């Protein structure tokens, strides 16, 4: 095994700037996609637990469709297929945007993750004992009030661990955006390796970014869970990840 380390290289031009750009891109790609994914996921998840059969069917179809196609394939569909199927006027406008790959990645990742968020929401609502619904209604709350004051506060707390792991998944999945030309941290370190042949140093930067973020997010969510827990209601799991 012959390999000469040169960690100092990473702090010099142009690598340091690339790394910072890469980390920043990864973060805002993940955060924007997360906000969208959560919004769509809540909508679809609510569809899946309503009384209406049509809405339930739509919700189920969405989840099955987006969960059973690999994210990488979905990114290609959004990049190469969808703009061609839409009206010409729209694809003309879309293709002239400055960051088409970036916005394609945002759309692709958030639609994909929404299907997973929707499943978490459904299973959280299903996990609430039937008695809670009945008790809420029999105290005279209207259905909307029941959801607002009883079910949602309950479900939101149940969901915290699952939502944490979904956020970490979206964070890792942003790396797939490199296939359509987004320079996030994994793509950046790949480029540094290609320029300098210092793969170990470069990939260490990317790995540390992911590990540090994972640890940070888990600590924050554990704090959130403790801060808002209802005593005696939910048993906290012991696992870290």
């Amino acid at each position, binding site marked *: 095994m012959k390999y000469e380390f040169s960690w100092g290289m990473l702090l010099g031009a142009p690598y340091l700037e690339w790394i910072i750009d890469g980390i920043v891109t990864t973060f805002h790609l993940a955060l924007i996609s997360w906000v969208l994914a959560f919004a769509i996921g809540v909508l679809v998840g609510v569809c899946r637990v309503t009384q209406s059969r049509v809405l339930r069917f739509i919700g189920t179809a969405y989840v099955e469709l987006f969960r*059973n196609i*690999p994210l*990488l394939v979905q990114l*290609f569909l959004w990049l*190469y*297929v969808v703009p061609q199927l839409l009206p010409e006027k729209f694809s003309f406008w879309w293709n002239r945007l400055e960051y088409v790959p970036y916005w394609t990645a945002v759309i692709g990742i958030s639609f994909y993750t929404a299907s997973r968020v929707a499943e978490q929401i459904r299973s959280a609502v299903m996990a609430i004992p039937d008695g809670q619904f009945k008790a809420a209604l029999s105290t005279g709350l209207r259905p909307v009030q029941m959801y607002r004051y009883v079910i949602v506060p309950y479900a939101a707390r149940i969901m915290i661990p699952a939502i944490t792991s979904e956020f970490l998944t979206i964070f890792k999945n942003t*790396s797939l955006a490199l296939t359509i030309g987004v320079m996030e941290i994994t793509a950046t370190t790949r480029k540094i390796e290609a320029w300098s042949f210092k793969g170990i140093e470069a990939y260490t930067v*990317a790995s540390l970014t992911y590990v540090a973020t994972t640890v940070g997010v888990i600590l924050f969510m554990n704090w959130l869970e403790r801060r808002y827990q209802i005593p005696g209601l939910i048993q906290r799991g012991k696992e870290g*990840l």
Partner: protein
Amino acid sequence: MDWDVIVANLPLLWRGLGTSLRLTAIAIALSFPLGCLIAIGRLSHRAWLSGFCAGFVNVLRSNPLILILFWFYFLMPIIIGRGINDLGSLIVTFMVFFSAYFAEIVRSGIQSVGTRQMQAGLSSGLTHAQTMRHIIMPQAIRAMLPALTTQCIIVFQGTTVAYIIGYDELLHSASMAAERTVRPVELYLTVAVIYFLVCYAGSLVARQFEKRTYS
């Protein structure tokens, strides 16, 4: 839509699907046993062993698959001193990466059985290994089946990263064909349908196991 392009490229896609499925099978065959070992190591009483296994699982699970692939793609030639083909680094990557996920499934499966079963086994005179083998594992595997099936689907979806290093699995074959024929719409849609059908079939199997577990 130009159906002729799809028909003309079906044999190619069929071969690609075969490659993807073979990759999936190899990946599962290697990573599941490794995952079982790591899970058992994690439940060990020896602090260094369980600590090492926990670290292994957590580090791998917080990194994306592509990055692990890049790591091995770059590291393998340095470690073994000579070049390695694409398939070799893919297989090593899948084995190591997915073993962490299998380890978590197996661990929670074993833990779901409960310590009383273990105590009962030990007090009826079985050794620790025998109790594991005859009492804990049969129950644990039944509890794990739905999650294991879902994980196999994820492995299948994960083989698409082979596209990135240009290995000729389903997605890569399709993208080559799309480039050659300049019909990306038809080819990518076909590939999406193929992936959907395989994964949906897998998810139906997982649901069957789930029904059986909870009935």
